[in-house]
């Protein structure tokens, strides 16, 4: 009996282990080694931390990272603000039989690729685009306005592309909430803001945390949206990694940046969890 159990465990564990080791652990070890390789003063190969030191010594690199992290945090917060009312409406206000239908409607745009959606936004917002055309023909403005290539548009694009990943955990955690909790609070004289902050938010906190982690990581690691919609000012940290690999042919530096991104973003998430007194295991369960 015991032997059977072990065999079963082995059979079911093997794909997971293969996946982890072959596709995640080994490439990361390769990257780590690459990031530590350099040349000494005579041009011979040597181990060095200089690629990591470059990040901290060159203002432009850590500046880009800080900028990226701040914008990713802002994206996370804005995404929450936008999706919470939607999730609340779908689960609590509208009749139960429409919940599934409305959720599908919410998912629908995500059936096409991110690239297509971003180009869609660009067609709408560009100077000779749809929105400018409508505004001019209505006589609201006389000359077209360039709405692309600034930080506001870029943030909007990021929020739009990550909305789904906040909405789904919010909906599932709000769905499990008993309406009578809200009704009871109401009967006992709690004001709407009190109900919101004391009952709903704490109840949905797991959903919020897991949504926030996913959205933050997606925004931080996004390459497409900042590059296409942000235009001339949008140096994103992933773009810098791409540049090191592709434009400067400096793979060692690029690998070091990749690792720094991994470490620093893990640290930010850890700090965020500590500050809000959440636990990773519970948030993801």
């Amino acid at each position, binding site marked *: 009996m015991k032997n059977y159990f072990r065999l079963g465990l082995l059979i079911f564990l093997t794909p997971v282990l293969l996946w982890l080791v072959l596709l995640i652990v080994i490439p990361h070890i390769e990257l780590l080694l690459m990031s530590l390789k350099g040349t000494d003063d005579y041009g011979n190969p040597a181990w060095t931390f200089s690629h990591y030191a470059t990040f901290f010594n060159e203002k432009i690199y850590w500046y880009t990272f800080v900028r990226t992290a701040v914008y990713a945090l802002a994206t996370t917060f804005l995404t929450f603000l936008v999706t919470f009312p939607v999730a609340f409406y779908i689960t609590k206000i509208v009749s139960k039989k429409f919940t599934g239908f409305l959720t599908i409607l919410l998912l629908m745009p995500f059936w096409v690729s991110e690239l297509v959606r971003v180009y869609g936004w660009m067609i709408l917002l560009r100077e000779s685009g749809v929105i400018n055309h409508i505004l001019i023909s209505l006589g609201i403005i006389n000359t077209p306005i360039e709405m692309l290539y600034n930080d506001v548009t870029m943030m909007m694009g990021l929020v739009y592309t990550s909305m789904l990943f906040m909405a789904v955990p919010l909906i599932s955690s709000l769905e499990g909430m008993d309406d009578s909790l809200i009704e009871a609070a109401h009967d006992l004289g709690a004001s709407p803001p009190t109900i919101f902050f004391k009952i709903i938010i704490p109840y949905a906190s797991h959903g919020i945390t897991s949504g926030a982690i996913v959205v933050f990581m997606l925004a931080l690691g996004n390459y497409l949206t900042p*590059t296409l919609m942000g235009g001339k000012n949008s140096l994103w940290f992933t773009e810098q990694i791409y540049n*090191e690999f592709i434009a400067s042919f400096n793979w060692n530096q690029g690998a070091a940046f990749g690792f720094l991104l991994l470490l620093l973003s893990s640290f930010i998430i850890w700090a965020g969890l500590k500050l809000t007194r959440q636990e990773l295991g519970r948030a993801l369960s």
Partner: protein
Amino acid sequence: MKRMLAAATIAFIGFAATSAQSAETLKILTWKGYAPQELVDKFEKETGMKVELTYTNNEEMIAKLRATRGAGFDLAQPSQDRISSVQAEFKIYQPMDYSKINGDQIIGSMLDAVKKNTKVGDDSYGVPFCYGTSGLIVNKKLAPEANDYTALLDKTYEGRISYRLKRPTLIGLAFAMGDDPFAKYGDPTAYKALMDSVAGKMIEAKPYVKNYWSNGDALLEMVRSGEVTVAMGWDNGGWKLHGENPDIDFVAPKSGALGWIDTFAIPAKAKNIEGAYEWINFMLKPENAAVFTNAEKYATASKGAGEFLDKEVAGNITRSFTEADIDNIKWYPPVGADIEQLEGKILDTVKAAN
């Protein structure tokens, strides 16, 4: 045991079959437009091979081949100045066997120049395919005064300027400032000082730029719609737009258009080498080269193609270039890895500046 053997046999046969099949395909790593469908069809019919195209640019081409150490493709088309230093360091190409190339159908001086510029050790690695220049694409009705790279920094065209945040822009602006960046390739310190001052000017004028383009088609679309009136781009793009709207044209900058030659080079671990040579000779055959030039407006390195060209295409060069402009073209010399790394950081600084 028997079953395992059978499985292994099947796997082996499958493997052999796929490798036999891949000998019949020709995988080309090239730029968009460098292999018109008409010619691909013709080549497939003549040789029975199947052509697979992957579109890319110089930087990604090198990165892709470097990642596989020169495997995965049978033919690549890097620019001639980007071959020798990359080859010296990463060994991603194999020496070109010029006895298999039909040299009679290639412009002699250009073949010699490419041989010289792609030489590493005793071997050369490139065969010229087409050439052209980078300069200005201008809407002459809306920006009649733009005739040099400095127009890209000019407040007059605020919000109507676009260029690529890549090395040609740095080099063009350095020439416009009266300097010669190519002469400083050998002296990284002097080169960095020059490029830092160019970057300073670019940052100062950054508010006037609409965006940094990265996709040629997207640029043409912006110029076509009038959103951009002054752009740095390739001559063939300007000529394409001239066919649609006579106000738009390619302008050779006063301080010199930047001349490039794109080549054929064979990756180190190419499988279908014979096919690669066949493709090179096929593409440079005068009547085929003319099909390419008529469609894409790039000038070809094929010697006898002139008589097959459309009249408008032949007229493009005389319209955009005077005799003096042609003499003033700055041809890219081979560039070293240290120079490219230094430029990468400078371009990042420009992009990050506000």
